[in-house]
């Protein structure tokens, strides 16, 4: 801790140095105290002036054996000086090293060495006296300088007291350490200074003041305001006499002061009769005896000191052989919950156990630490059927009764269904594997040789032939539809149908007549007659099967057929009638002539009607 007094001294030293050689690198070594107690922490400051712009070197500080370096911090300031019109700029770097002396005696600290630009600069040495014990309770006022308020006066009116609830405990047993501030001042800016690490103890915070609550208390006939600052639960981890190095507390104390000299810069600017002074108070060191636990601990003892209870349960009790099941063992109680090891596993071959996972939850009950430590065991049943998990055993040391206590959980009954055979085999023989790892990547290999490559661009949709073939079913459908339509029309209109069929009917009859050409004259003429008259009837859709020549004449006239044709038809019909009823008339030559005449006549009539 750098006090303001020290800073002022340092500034003066620097000023002097700078006057000597403003630009050169200088190194100054100073300590905030030169007389300190064993184990006390004090500050050693290496002040360097360097040219602006140069790199900040790291000073090397030689510490004699018996000193520990606790920490380091640095600060930088820049100053501009004008001497005879020449402006020079200097940077001052203060490196503050926090040091602890562990041995009694007088020691020489330093020199501090700084290397810059290939040049080594050394500081002077300082002598520090480490004494066994400073008068206690000790107050470190920031004054070597004289003040109205003497150090003695401050010590009488402000002190920090550390108390423990007992001086001798077992290893692992709780010890309550309390810090109380006794003050007769109106203190300001209270804050914690150095908080020790309490080596050799497990520490749990019980209470820490966020603001000072003062209660009046009389000590040695004087009335003080007592404030509880902090309470901690300590658990010794190793046996033996343990020294509790103590905490420091910093606050500002208003102190009446008077003007000392015109060179005192602060006073020069402030005439305030009341000034505050930063004061660091430190509690006295304490010694605690940590006793070893007595011998004869049960095998299931795993370090618990206090009063505990234990319980165990399984996440589920109906399981399959080979499937893991979680068993939760809970140790609950007051004492060093952190220091508890795994409860002793039941000795059984029916389960395979894995190392448990321990979870600690603590809380403060009054000033006693209590808590729950939960152990999650993963167990795999190796037997099947009704399997009992024997109890977990847990022993702890009760410091009040000064003896060991052993507890055990209830046994847990499992219903284990046998594993399927394949699963069992897999469980037993499955080798430890890992996912296949990709080592390198490349393109896929080329396609293989082929006996014949085929073109893949013979696209059907590009071929006109393909699309013209598509017209085929459509066209056939259209044709079929047309044909069907015609059919239906024919079926509906008898006249038209007769007209359509007339020619083929007539042809049929004529060919029939041709076959009768040589054999039977009467039948031949009858056939000719029928062919012609039926043809006419079909053409004009007359009900009668045959027409007489008179009827034919009439019909044809109505159809306005040429009179020559009408005349011819009538003559053919008359010839036929005559020949039919007067056998023997007409030779075969006549018949052939008649046949061809009728054929041409039918052609003519077809056009005419």
């Amino acid at each position: 801790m750098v006090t303001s007094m020290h800073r002022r001294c340092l500034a003066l030293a620097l000023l002097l140095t700078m006057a000597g050689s403003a630009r050169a690198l200088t190194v100054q070594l100073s300590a905030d105290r030169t007389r300190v107690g064993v184990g006390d922490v004090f500050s050693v400051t290496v002040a360097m002036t360097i040219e602006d712009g140069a790199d900040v070197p790291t000073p090397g500080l030689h510490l004699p054996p018996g000193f520990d370096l606790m920490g380091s911090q640095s600060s930088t300031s820049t100053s501009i000086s004008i001497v005879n019109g020449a402006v020079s700029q200097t940077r001052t770097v203060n490196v503050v090293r926090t040091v602890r002396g562990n041995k009694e005696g007088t020691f020489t600290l330093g020199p501090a060495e700084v290397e810059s630009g290939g040049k080594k600069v050394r500081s002077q040495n300082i002598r520090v006296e480490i004494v066994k014990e400073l008068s206690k309770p000790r107050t470190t006022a920031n004054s070597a300088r004289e003040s109205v308020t003497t150090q003695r006066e401050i010590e009488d009116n402000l002190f920090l007291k550390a108390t423990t609830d007992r001086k001798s405990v077992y290893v692992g047993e709780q010890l309550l350490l309390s810090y109380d501030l006794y003050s007769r001042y109106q203190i300001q800016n209270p804050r914690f200074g150095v908080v020790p690490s309490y080596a050799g103890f497990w520490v749990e915070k019980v209470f820490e003041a966020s603001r000072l609550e003062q209660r009046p208390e009389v000590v040695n006939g004087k009335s003080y305001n007592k404030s509880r600052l902090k309470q901690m639960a300590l658990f010794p981890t190793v046996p033996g006499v343990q020294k509790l190095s103590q905490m420091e507390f910093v606050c500002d104390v208003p102190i009446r002061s008077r003007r000392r000299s015109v060179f005192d810069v602060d006073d020069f600017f402030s005439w305030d009769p009341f000034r505050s002074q930063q004061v660091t108070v430190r509690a006295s060191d304490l010694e605690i005896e940590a006793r070893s636990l007595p011998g004869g601990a049960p095998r299931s003892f795993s370090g618990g000191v206090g009063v505990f209870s234990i319980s165990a349960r399984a996440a589920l009790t109906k399981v399959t052989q080979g499937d893991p099941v979680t068993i939760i063992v809970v140790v609950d109680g007051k004492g060093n919950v952190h220091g508890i090891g795994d409860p002793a596993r039941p000795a059984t071959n029916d389960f395979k156990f894995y190392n448990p996972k321990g979870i600690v939850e603590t809380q403060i009950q009054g000033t006693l630490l209590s808590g729950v430590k939960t152990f999650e065991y993963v167990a795999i049943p190796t037997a099947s059927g009704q399997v009992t998990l024997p109890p977990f055993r847990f022993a702890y040391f009760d410091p009040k009764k000064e003896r060991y206590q052993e507890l055990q959980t209830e046994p847990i009954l499992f219903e284990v269904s046998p594993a399927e055979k394949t699963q069992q085999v897999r469980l037993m023989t499955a080798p430890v594997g890992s996912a296949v790892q990709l080592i390198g990547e490349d393109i896929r290999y080329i396609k293989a040789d082929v006996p014949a490559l085929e073109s893949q661009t013979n696209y059907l949709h590009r071929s006109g032939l393909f699309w013209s073939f598509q017209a085929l079913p459509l066209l056939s459908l259209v044709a079929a539809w047309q044909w069907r339509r015609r059919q239906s029309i024919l079926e509906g209109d008898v006249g038209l149908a007769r007209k359509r069929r007339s020619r083929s009917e007539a042809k049929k009859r004529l060919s029939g007549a041709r076959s009768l050409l040589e054999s039977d004259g009467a039948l031949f003429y009858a056939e000719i007659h029928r062919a012609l008259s039926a043809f006419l009837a079909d053409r004009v859709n007359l009900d009668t099967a045959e027409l007489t020549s008179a009827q034919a004449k009439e019909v044809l006239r109505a159809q306005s057929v040429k009179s020559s044709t009408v005349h011819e038809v009538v003559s053919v019909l008359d010839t036929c009638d005559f020949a039919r009823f007067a056998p023997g008339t007409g030779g075969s030559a006549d018949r052939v002539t008649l046949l061809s005449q009728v054929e041409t006549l039918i052609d003519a009539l077809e056009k005419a009607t």
Partner: protein
Amino acid sequence: MTKASHAALSGVFALVVLIFTDIQSSSSATALYNEGNALYRKGAFVEAVALYEDALSTGLENSDVYYNLGNAHYKVGELGLAILNYERALRLNPMDADILGNISFANGRITDRFEEDPPNIVTRFLVGLYDLVPPNGLSVVVSVALVMGCLGGGAILFSGRHRLTWGAVIAFSVLSCGLGATVLAIKVADLSTPQGIVLAVEIVGRSGPGSDFLQVFMLHEGTKIVLERQEGAWGLIRLPNGLGGWVPLDAIRMI
């Protein structure tokens, strides 16, 4: 009647001639391809490239040749040409796992990246289905559906019985025919999309067809683009993210 049969005869003749020349070119292309493969196996990739290209110059279009050519180009460090040939192979054979694998592998090595959302499962399914059916398959579907529909129509026309069943057949046919034709049309349009691959190591996209125009983006070898317009030696290209710009046409090659 005689006219129609004459036309059919000449058509068949043309087909025979076509198939014959096809087989001719195919046999020489196959020899070149297999020879190229042998060189590839020996590690003579440059020579393999030449042979594969000779095989393709016979006019044969086969995805295996393009794929192996792409591989050979990749092996000699021509990433742009490798991707170009993989893409050409993919057009002919969109479902081939090797082609898809190497396209994605090669695309992992190009410089340009475009943020694209991975397609959802429905899109993936539809695209998969779309790629699964080749254009000829669609043509056959259209053809068969047409015949089926006409048969259905004929059956209704002549028998008059089971009108409902035949009606359903016709409806199904019309639907299949329409769907097949639509997908085919999309596919044909897709195949004729003027896509290209950047072959130059680096090209600058400009705001107009000329080197005086403002630079709008930089492209690198292997990036796939769509050519939208041409003007002289310059082409307006469109990137997958919608960005457009003019680049010299000799820096890209169409798939």
